[in-house]
């Protein structure tokens, strides 16, 4: 009870630190995991293929259909091919593969039909013809087979429509391939290059490296990272002073320990034990506060989940901060006030 009475303000500090670090680390870990999720339902083994002409002004006579043919002859595996057709939409080709979008009715495109899967919000752009629903893009009508609700993934803009890939369009452009090995795609493109030597291509895995993922997390969670930095700055500004006052308030006990033969390191070990006990207790309350804040959706747009690993990281962070704060505070006390005397025995 005596410890509690003397530690109100330290407890209050660490409850705030624990609440925000639990939220911040949960959010950072969640964001890091999200960077592994590729857009538009692509699996982690997917790759990006850029096909262009070596001379920029020259137009290729080759069509997308030729690329599809090469890919299908290269491997019997089912695959999905996306082509960027607009900043709002993509065209798809499916080889024994399903369209990996979570659609409202689970309808899949039929082979050989010009179809579209639309974002719910684009529904008013639909036209009705002979009882069927159509979406017009580039002067062509696509039958609407289903709707989806786009999800924001990483830094990419969510797409609003997916249409059947027209094999008669020019082969140059940006593609994403899912389901094939990098070698198969590379061979297909090399064989395409033999037919048209001015064709240039580049294949890159869509999966990000750890440093790229961390970069995305920092960009995505700028505010959370900033609030962690603010927390550290505030701890430096305020907690050391409060901890010094906490040590000050216990000077009678410290003197009594010296009188009965305690050494400096014994006193510091005892203070650290008590201090970490206070930090641990405050952390438990802080973690509960963080959980409650999330449960009531107080910061649902900043932090979305309460992650166990975030909790452990936050605990490690608080214990580290607590230990270093106490070490610094005892050092300050020893230098300024002589409450803790080095060499006392």
């Amino acid at each position, binding site marked *: 009870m005596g410890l509690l009475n003397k530690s109100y*303000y330290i407890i*209050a*500090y660490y409850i*705030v630190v624990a609440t*925000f670090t639990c939220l911040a680390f949960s959010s950072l870990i969640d964001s890091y995991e999200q960077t592994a999720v590729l857009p538009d339902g692509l699996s982690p083994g997917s790759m990006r293929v850029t096909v262009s002409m070596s001379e920029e002004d020259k137009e290729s006579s080759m069509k997308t259909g030729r690329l599809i043919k090469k890919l299908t002859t290269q491997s019997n595996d089912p695959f999905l091919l996306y082509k*960027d*057709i*607009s*900043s*709002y*939409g993509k065209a798809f080709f499916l080889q024994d593969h399903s369209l990996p979008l979570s659609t409202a009715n689970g309808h899949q495109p039929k082979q050989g039909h010009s179809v579209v899967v639309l974002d719910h*919000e*684009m529904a*008013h*752009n639909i*036209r009705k013809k002979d009882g069927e629903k159509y979406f*017009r*893009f*580039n*002067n062509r009508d696509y039958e609407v087979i289903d709707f989806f609700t786009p999800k924001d993934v990483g830094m990419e803009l969510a797409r*609003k429509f997916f249409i059947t890939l027209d094999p008669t369009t020019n082969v*140059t*452009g940006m593609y994403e391939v899912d389901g094939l090995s990098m070698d198969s795609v590379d061979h297909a493109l090399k064989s395409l290059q033999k037919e048209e030597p001015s064709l240039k291509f580049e294949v890159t895995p869509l999966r990000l490296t750890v440093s790229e993922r961390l970069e995305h997390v920092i960009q995505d969670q700028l*505010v959370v990272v*900033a*609030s962690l930095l*603010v*927390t550290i700055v*505030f701890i430096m*500004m*305020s907690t050391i*002073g*409060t901890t010094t*006052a906490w040590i000050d308030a216990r000077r009678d006990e410290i003197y009594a320990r010296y009188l009965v033969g305690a050494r400096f390191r014994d006193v510091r070990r005892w203070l650290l034990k008590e201090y970490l006990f206070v930090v641990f207790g405050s952390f438990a309350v802080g973690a509960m506060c963080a959980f409650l804040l999330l449960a009531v959706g107080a*910061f*649902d*747009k*900043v*932090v979305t989940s309460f992650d166990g690993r975030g909790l452990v990281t936050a605990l490690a962070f608080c214990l580290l901060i607590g230990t270093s704060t106490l070490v610094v505070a005892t050092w300050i006390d020893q230098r300024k006030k002589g409450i803790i005397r080095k060499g006392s025995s």
Partner: protein
Amino acid sequence: MGNQFLLALKDLWRQKGQTFILLVQIMLVIGLIQFAALSFIDLHKMKEEVKKLTSDKEIYGLMDLTSEKDIDTLMNDDKKAPVMRSLYEFIFHNKNFSAFRMSSNSLSVKDPALLKVKGVTPIRGQSEIEYVMTTEKFLDYFRIDIAKGRRFVAEDYVNKKTKSTPVLIGSRLAQVWDVGDIFTDAYGDQYKVIGILKEGATYIDIMASREIQQLDSMMISPVNDSKLQYFSDYDDIIPGSYIVSNDEAVMKQIVDYAAKLKTYAFAYKSMSQQVKHVIADKQEWIQIQLFLLSLVMSFTLISLIVSLLQFVAKNRYEFGIHYLTGATDKYIIMRITFQLLPLFIIGNLVNFFIDVTVMSVCVTFLASIVLGMLAVIIPVMKIRRMGLSSILRWKIK
């Protein structure tokens, strides 16, 4: 009271380091409150603006689905300009619906007097003035009024002869120019001021941004039909157009006409649909500010309470003497409150460097009072509950 204030200032000076840290924390809190208040005000204004715009008719925005490659092809096709002209005429001079467009940009003017105008950006000795180029219905739909001079007339949108472009200037720019003045930009193009906007005029390009644009430091110039010649001229205007109509069928007509002319692949969105996203964006931004604010505020509040309690503990004997010489609780409370007052005054004054509004200043001021009161309550309670004898006994200890 003056004496108490002086004593408090001396106390603060004695603890310079701690005072500085507390001042930084208070300034941060007040700054964040100010930003959050401004965001709330902005959100409210935006809702009002959209409500005002869509009160009697629905407004639709065009979504340009055309690929970059197709745009490049169109850009390099010299024959496309006449086709674009007919699409422009179809959208902006159609009897069945009305349309407006605003595209913002900036121009550089060399006039030292402009550097003193709030909202004008100085760049290498010149002044960068934001302007919005608009079609005919813009002023009507945003209900922008003129304080002096005249509005644009039909002739201003088609005039082939005039050497100078007619412009309407924001109220702050009226410190430099008056109606009838002619000025030249860095490229030698002339502009003639034909009117001054009423203070507080705003607009929002809701399909492109979530921010309300204040026109006080901006200019409005008309899109001159006769100067539209190339594909790029039309491309600056057509894709971001807003169509006003109660009949959604006209949007399908525009989409079809653009496709028939082999120009753009358009879709459309209603403003009331788009505004939901913009409001959600804005609310997210406000929540981010509140997240940071609650963190900084919690730390600051605890720091203030701890610092005042340390102050009370350190000066307990002095307070005892005060009581013995006839001071009442009122003076002791004053002494403690004045420890914070200068910090809050400086914090609030620094905030005037931010582009504030009367409302945000009031909110920040009230929040400062509440925060100050919360910080003072515990130390005051503590000293009142101590009793004179225990205060004086402390010295012996």
